[in-house]
């Protein structure tokens, strides 16, 4: 899981160092840019290899022993990945680094020779003399002609001192880095939004659990009654309702005065109270939380109660229940002492299975209802390319999911001594 999150993190299109530097007010192409870039990169550990080992083509082998600053090294690495040869790359880079004008030097460091040629054309004349420009052009031409063609993979071992190792150990230590958008520590953003999501999820899970237990058990016992048939049909309809449609409909019809004042029951989606005490928070925002909770609860009830009903029916048809019935055990005792405890087992797994889905749907619901929870944080971080926030969220959410499944397993084993752990 951490490998996947890191793999995604490593392949994001934006350069994190660049973004952080621009946050500090150091612009691209300024004179001190290269120095600041190198400093930041070493500080963040981005100059280290990204994983324990790497598989690259044979043209990138010499890069690791190439003694230049990390800003230029990145350029050389990108060129070598395109299978350009060592001698040409070194010549090109030394020509560019010898330029006196630092701004044009920073401008010319780019990823492909084609890009380099375009930028050369854009360069203002006078800054760099024409001899140098034509020299660079000939080198690029030579590079293109003499490009390495046959290539093979080379496995190289980097050891423990790599980005992934540092990232994971930082993650375990609780050091998530800073956000790329406002330079706030990520953990502060995470915790302030985590409270909202947990509150929403716990309240809605408790409500939907209660309703679906009562409905499921009642319908399971009275299988085939009119109420059972009708509620089953309606629940199946509810099960198919897309949550975001329900949420949009509720926002449109119940929070605006467009359709008469009588539908404008709930306060509109707007500012949420700042962080206060947990229960005070619920008290303050209760009016706004009703709609999101309804939206989460309805499909969940539809899903859970149908399954609980099925497992009750399953249990109800077993021999020992028939035996108890024929023995004359009171109906209430059969239900409470035999049926419910025995059909609980599979239900707990189902309950654990609801949580990942609920986290996913909380993303859409938080976006629609503007709740500052973890889903909205994730959504906004993706929109603003704030990858330093996105990947810790993915990690935490997946850890949460795994922990829930584990807890469910333990709970089942505790309830049912027949199952052994391990």
């Amino acid at each position, binding site marked *: *899981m951490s490998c*996947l999150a890191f793999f*995604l993190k490593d*392949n*994001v*299109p934006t350069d994190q160092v660049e973004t952080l530097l621009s946050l500090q007010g150091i612009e691209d192409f300024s004179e001190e840019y290269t120095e600041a870039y190198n400093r930041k990169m070493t500080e963040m550990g981005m100059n280290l290899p990204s994983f324990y080992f790497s*598989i690259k*083509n044979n043209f990138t082998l010499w890069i690791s022993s190439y003694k230049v600053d990390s800003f230029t090294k990145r350029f050389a690495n990108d060129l070598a990945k395109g299978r350009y040869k060592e001698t040409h790359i070194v010549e090109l880079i030394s020509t560019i680094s010898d330029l006196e004008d630092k701004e044009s030097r920073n401008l010319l460091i780019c990823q492909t020779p084609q890009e380099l040629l375009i930028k050369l054309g854009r360069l203002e004349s006078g800054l760099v003399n024409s001899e140098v420009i034509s020299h660079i052009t000939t080198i690029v031409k030579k590079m293109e002609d003499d490009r390495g*063609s*046959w*290539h*093979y*993979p080379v*496995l190289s071992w980097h050891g423990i001192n790599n980005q992934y190792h540092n990232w994971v150990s930082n993650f375990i230590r609780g050091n998530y880095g800073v956000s790329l958008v406002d330079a706030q520590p990520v953990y502060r953003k995470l915790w302030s939004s985590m409270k909202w999501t947990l509150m929403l999820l716990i309240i809605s899970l408790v409500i939907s659990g209660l309703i679906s237990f009562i409905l499921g058990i009642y319908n399971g016992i009275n299988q085939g009654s009119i109420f059972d048939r009708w509620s089953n*049909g309606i629940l*199946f*309809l509810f*099960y*198919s*309702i*897309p949550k*975001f*449609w329900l949420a*949009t*409909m509720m*926002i*449109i*019809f119940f929070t*605006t005065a*467009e*359709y008469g004042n009588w539908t404008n029951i709930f306060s509109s989606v707007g500012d949420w109270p700042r962080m206060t005490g947990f229960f005070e928070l619920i008290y303050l925002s209760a009016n706004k939380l009703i709609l999101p909770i309804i939206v989460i609860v309805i499909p969940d009830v539809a899903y859970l109660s149908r399954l609980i009903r099925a497992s009750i029916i399953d249990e109800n048809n077993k021999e020992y229940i028939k035996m108890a019935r024929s023995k004359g055990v009171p109906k209430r005792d059969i239900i409470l002492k035999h049926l419910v405890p025995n059909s609980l087992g599979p239900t707990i797994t189902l309950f654990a299975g609801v949580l*990942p889905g609920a*986290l*996913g*749907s909380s*993303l*859409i619901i938080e*976006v*629609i209802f503007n709740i500052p929870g973890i889903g909205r944080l*994730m*959504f906004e971080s*993706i*929109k603003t*390319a704030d990858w330093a926030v*996105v*990947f810790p*969220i*993915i990690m935490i*959410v*997946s850890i949460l*999911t*795994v922990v829930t*499944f584990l807890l469910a397993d333990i709970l089942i084993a505790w309830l049912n001594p027949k199952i052994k752990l391990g």
Partner: protein
Amino acid sequence: MIISIRKFWDNISNHKGLRFSIFVISAWTMIALFAPLFESLLGVGFSNLQPENGLLPPFSSNDDFFHLLGTDYLGRDLLAAMIHGARVAFIIALASVAISLSLGLSVGLLIGFYGDSGIKKNLVQQFIIYVAIVIGIYYLISMISEGVNIYNFVPLLGVVLTSVGLDRLGKKLPIKKYGVPLDIIMQRLFELREGLPGLFIILSIAALISSQSIFSVAVIISILYWMTFARHARAETMRLKEEDYIMSAYSSGVSNFRLLFYHILPNAMPSIFVIIAFTFGAVILLESSLSFLGIGMPVEEVSWGKILAGARKSPKAWWLAVFPGLAIFLVLYSFNNLADYLGQYQRRNDKIE
């Protein structure tokens, strides 16, 4: 155990809800298939911008067109947009179900059939296989990134051929053989997928991809959904492997290939159909929530989710929220209903036999 279509049709003909679902699915499929035709019949394209006619209610007409379902804030006809949205939704659903079905079914059949000890190789052979896989993936990635050329195709072919040849040679070595742990590896992968928050992963992958199109969305969705197919195909294959008729076919000397594709696959299909119907609905839901959030789909494409997202900007226009949502809901309901019924039907059939 194979569902005979005739028998199936006899069964559903007295099932009202199911008839309705099948009607809805086939109607939307027709609309999606012939979307350009319907749009030309309508006389107005979905991309026809008329900002002066923005937010017209249903059943209203302006100078040129009659807008049956009204218009959005840019004056685009809602009905035309929904017809086009149906096409987008069905293309994505079909593409991702096709990709994940073919991948998941083949992987699931293989690991279900061979398990951990079905393919026995000695250590030398196993080493050769793993090295060949690593090198092969290297050239495959190079193929994907720079296109197929002689410098990556020839080495890839060479790696495949030499590894097969070396494997043959290694077979003769007098060393102890071990099973290739196919099943364990895939099981760990499935567990990983269980623990991952699907929507979160899809969102972040979709945001990373630079060239956004309908098919990139389909590929991203199928990255997660093929495992569902693989898991079910594996379970089904493992169940069928123990059946008497498979055993007797095996003992009468039927080849593994024939056993897999002529005996196990057709019998595994009924339960796969359930997953197909279910996944179809789930993918349409996922696609519409992605486009509702505005991530992954190209900007110029119209889809149901996008129309719904537009409804949030103009709360006065109830038709923008009701109709596309109703369309998603009906399609989803129909597919869920179909999947539910197929599951019940199959279980009943199993019980009878």
